Each structure stands twice: as structure tokens, then as C-alpha cells.
């Protein structure tokens, strides 16, 4: 049996859960699949999951699970997993999964394979493909032992629309767990968004994004000129915003904005997965990088290997002809 841990916030299901279910169906290969959903407001998303008919939905609606804490989730899920004994526990590789899944794996002494992009085999015999060395290499990994494992699936690696819905809704069963509130050590406050300026990169038709290859803040005008010539918005990968060269709201990637413009031009961006998840849906992607092996070329439609400080001015000149 494959057990998917769904994710919800304020009663709204995280879309990446559907991707995790699609991956879990591939792992289950017709064997049983169950979906667990946790939280006091899990009722509505439990119904939504049940309607897809992919397998029995286990709703754990204990009040101690709201708001989310890693301690609370691990207490609940350790009980669930120890009694259900799934072959594989499947999750989407979200920030929340990254927060609690390693603790859960350590508590259960089960392997955890993170950021998985591919599956070989099924059930307990499965091996998993995941990026290593910033995406420069792909590793095929085999979990040790015979007790099953936990797996997180990279966002976007499995398609939610590949999910095979059942012909009839699945049953929802309410599952009780024992949670000692005093054992929950984190006291979270309400999530908030920082005050944002009026930059909605999601609306931009064209984006020119810069990465470490720009080398210093003084060189930013090189990219700005290209953005102007292409009628594009300027954006950046995380390290550029970390260094304070561009404001955080211009950051593309898992911790910033997700965009899918008509044209995305990546200048000196190596293409760490955290960046790729934010832009790989773009219609046309151009990568200009001095390193021919940079992972950005794996998602690019057009690539130029070379010095951006020579190529970008030539591009601007060409566009202004």
C-alpha cells in the first residue's frame, strides 16, 4: 500500500498534492493507495480528495494539528504509519514536507528520499531518481532496509493531469490519533506576506533574468539594456536578491515568484532546481551561460554558450537595428 500525505492550508488543498498522488499511482501499479490529510480544517479537502476516487481518504482532524507544526504532524503521522505500515509514504516536496518529513523519517527509522523526479520499479522494490550536485548529476537511489520508505516528489516532475481518477468516490474515514499538546514545542503565528511593491512578474510577457554570472551589481545595466530592448521585465535568481542587488520581489523560483511568460531569457543563471521550478513553464526559454553543462540548458529552447558581457551587448545592438 502507498500512503500519500496530502497538504492543506486553511482548508485549501495544495495543488502539488495531486502531483504526489499521480506519482504514487505509478508506484502503486494497481496496488492499494490511501491518502491521509491532517488538520482541523481537513474536512473539505478530504471530500475533494475522495471525489477523485483514487483510494481511501484518512482524515485526521485533531484540533492539535491546527496550525501546522512539525512536532504535531510527526506525532500524528508516526502513529498512522506504524499502524498502516505502507510500503511507501509519498509527499510533495513542499516547504512543509521539508520541515517535518526528515523528523518523521528519523523517528520511524525509515529512509527518506527527497526531491524525486523519476521512479523505477514499484512498491518496496522501487528506486528513485533525484538531482544531486545542484542538478549537474542525476542519482538513482535505492532505500535501505525492508521496512518501506518515505519519498518527496519534486514540484512539477509528475503531472497532476496524468492522475487516473476512479469511477466512483472513495470512502473517507476519520482516523483518531493521540496528541499530547504539551509535546508540541513550536508555537506558530499567522502567516503573512511582506509589503510588496507593484511588480507582478506573473503578468509580464517577456522576462530577462540575471544570475551569478552577472558577477557584480555594477554590471546590472547590461541586463537592464536587454530588458528594455526586448520590452521585458527584469528579474533574478535567488543569489542576486540575497546579495541585495535587486529587490526580493524580482526573484524567480520556489521562494519567489513562479512565472510562465512568452519569452524568458536567463543570463548567467546556472539553473538550480529552486530556480527552474519558477520558470520552466515559460513558452520560449533562452539561456546564455559560459558553462555548456549548466542545468539551465536542459530546459532551454535556445542556448548560447559564451560570455554574456559580449553576447548581451551584441543582442541589444541587433534588436535596435
Amino acid at each position, binding site marked *: 500500500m502507498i500512503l500519500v500525505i496530502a497538504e492543506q492550508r486553511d482548508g485549501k488543498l495544495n495543488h502539488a498534492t495531486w502531483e504526489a498522488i499521480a506519482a504514487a499511482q505509478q508506484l502503486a501499479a494497481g496496488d492499494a493507495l490511501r491518502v491521509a490529510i491532517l488538520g482541523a480544517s481537513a474536512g473539505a479537502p478530504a471530500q475533494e480528495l475522495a471525489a477523485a476516487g483514487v483510494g481511501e481518504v484518512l482524515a485526521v482532524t485533531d484540533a492539535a494539528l491546527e496550525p501546522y507544526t512539525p512536532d504535531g504532524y510527526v506525532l500524528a503521522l508516526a502513529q498512522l504509519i506504524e499502524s498502516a505500515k505502507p510500503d511507501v509514504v509519498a509527499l510533495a516536496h513542499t516547504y512543509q514536507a521539508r520541515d517535518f518529513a526528515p523528523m518523521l523519517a528519523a523517528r520511524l527509522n525509515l529512509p*527518506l528520499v527527497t526531491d524525486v523526479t523519476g521512479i523505477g520499479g514499484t512498491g518496496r522494490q522501487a528506486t528513485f531518481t533525484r538531482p544531486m550536485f545542484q542538478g549537474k548529476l542525476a*542519482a*538513482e537511489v535505492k532505500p535501505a532496509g525492508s521496512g518501506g520508505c518515505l519519498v518527496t516528489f519534486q514540484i512539477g516532475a509528475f503531472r497532476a493531469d496524468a492522475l487516473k481518477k476512479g469511477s466512483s468516490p472513495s470512502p473517507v474515514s476519520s482516523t483518531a490519533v493521540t496528541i499530547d499538546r504539551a509535546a508540541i514545542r513550536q508555537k506558530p503565528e499567522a502567516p*503573512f506576506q511582506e509589503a510588496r511593491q507593484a511588480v507582478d512578474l506573473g503578468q509580464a510577457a517577456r522576462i530577462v533574468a540575471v544570475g551569478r554570472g552577472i558577477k557584480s551589481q555594477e554590471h546590472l545595466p547590461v541586463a537592464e539594456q536587454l530588458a528594455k530592448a526586448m520590452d521585458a521585465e527584469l528579474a533574478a535568481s535567488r543569489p542576486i536578491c540575497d546579495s541585495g542587488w535587486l529587490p526580493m520581489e524580482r526573484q524567480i523560483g520556489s521562494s519567489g515568484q513562479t512565472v510562465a511568460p512568452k519569452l524568458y531569457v536567463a543570463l548567467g543563471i546556472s539553473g538550480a532546481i529552486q530556480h527552474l521550478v519558477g520558470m520552466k513553464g515559460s513558452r520560449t526559454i533562452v539561456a546564455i551561460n559560459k558553462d555548456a553543462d549548466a542545468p539551465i540548458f536542459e530546459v532551454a529552447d535556445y542556448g548560447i554558450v559564451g560570455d554574456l558581457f559580449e553576447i548581451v*551587448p551584441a543582442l541589444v545592438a541587433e534588436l535596435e537595428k
Partner: protein
Amino acid sequence: MKIAVCIKQVPTREWQPRLREDKTWIREQDASFEMNEPDAYALEESLRLREKHGGEVVVCAAGPARVQQVLREALARGADRALHVDDESLGSADAFVSAAALAAAMADEKFDLVLTGLQSDDQGHGQTGVILAERLGIPHSTIIMEIQIDPSAGSGQAAGMRVKRELEGGWFQWVAMPLPALLTVQSGINQLRYATLKGIMAAKKKEIRKVALPAGLQPSQQIVALALPVRSKQTQMIDGSPAEAARELVRRLREEARAL
């Protein structure tokens, strides 16, 4: 405050991957190594906390002899002393083994706060810090962008802190938690400092205590094969001089892709 910061040594960003004969690990002799970047932010944060609240920063690493280089660098940037779980097998260890190795070396030190980077730039499991917290029996929080230590800590009141977690899509959340605790730090939490000549000289006199790897640690996962990733798209590479490449790219963006 007694602060531990865990750092890893990873291949440099410029490193071009080359595989060992059996294709289950890299040819380490070809690689040059540096401090894992997220860990550098954790180190910087630990130094800032010590400057604000006093105490000691102990830098901890689990790895082969080569990791002395990054431990020495951390000492040059201002850490007070170092713990090194020294074993050749740790170069390719998974998160379970790394965390168990660190936990064994760190348990007796009774740190108030343990910081790690949020993941490593080599294997990138993103697990070691959180597993270490569980092994040390302390609470954790991850992907932290700010740390506020409760000033009343130590004066009879239970020590605690408030940390700012990064959530997805530009959302954040404050979380209060007791000390001791472990935090995984997000890159960009601060501006990094670099070692001064004075720091480099001072580091030579600082202690790096070697600790043996506990016997019998079993990996939780095995790398069956490493390979260059499969390309998901057929990328059209454009060659020529900068001017030629620029002309050809603009032509294709206008005529083929209709993106301009």
C-alpha cells in the same frame, strides 16, 4: 549562549562533474572544495548572535580529512573552536549517517542553539539538520530568515526565541520556540563576512578537536548510479561570434518562436 554551527564541504560551483569508475560517486581527486553556501549563512548568523548575546560559536563538521580546510576557514571568520568527526567514509555519507555522526560528537556539549544551512549543494537531501535535531532530542524549525533570542533567557525564565520561517510564494511566519533548538537557515538571511588576515592568523591557534565516527552506522539509502541528467527539451545551440550568435538568436526568436 553556546552556539553550534554545522558546515559541510562541497565541490565548488565551477566544478565539472566527473564520475568514479563504478559510477556511484564523483572522482573526488578532480574536485576542488569549498564551504557549502547555505552553511556559510548559518555561520555568519551564529557570529552575529554571539556578537549580540555573547557566548561561544563552535563549528562542527562530519567528513574526511579534507574538511579541515572549511573548518579552518570558519575559525578564520570568527568561530571559537571546531569539532571534526573525521572519517574517510563520510565524504559520500547520506543524511542519516551525517546526522548520527554529528549527534554523537555534539550531544555532550549541550548547545543552546544549533544552526545548519537548509541543504547541501552536493547531495542536497535537505535532511541532515532536521534529523540531527531529532537525534539530539531538541525542537527545530526550517528555512529561517530571522532569529530573535528572548532577552529574558537565562534570568530565571525558560530560554526561548522567535524565528521567521520562509513559506512558499513570498509568505512568512513567525514561530516561537524554546531553547535548546536547531534551526536550518535560508541563504540570504544576512550579508556574509570574509576572513581578515588577522582572523586567518588567529585561526591557526584555535582548536579543532577530532572525534571518531561511531561504529555501526548504516546508510539509509544507496546511490545505485550517478549520471548526467537527461535533457527534457531539445535545446538548439547557437554558435558563432557574439554578433553572429546574436543575429541568429534574434532571427529565430522573431521567426520561429514568435516571442519578440
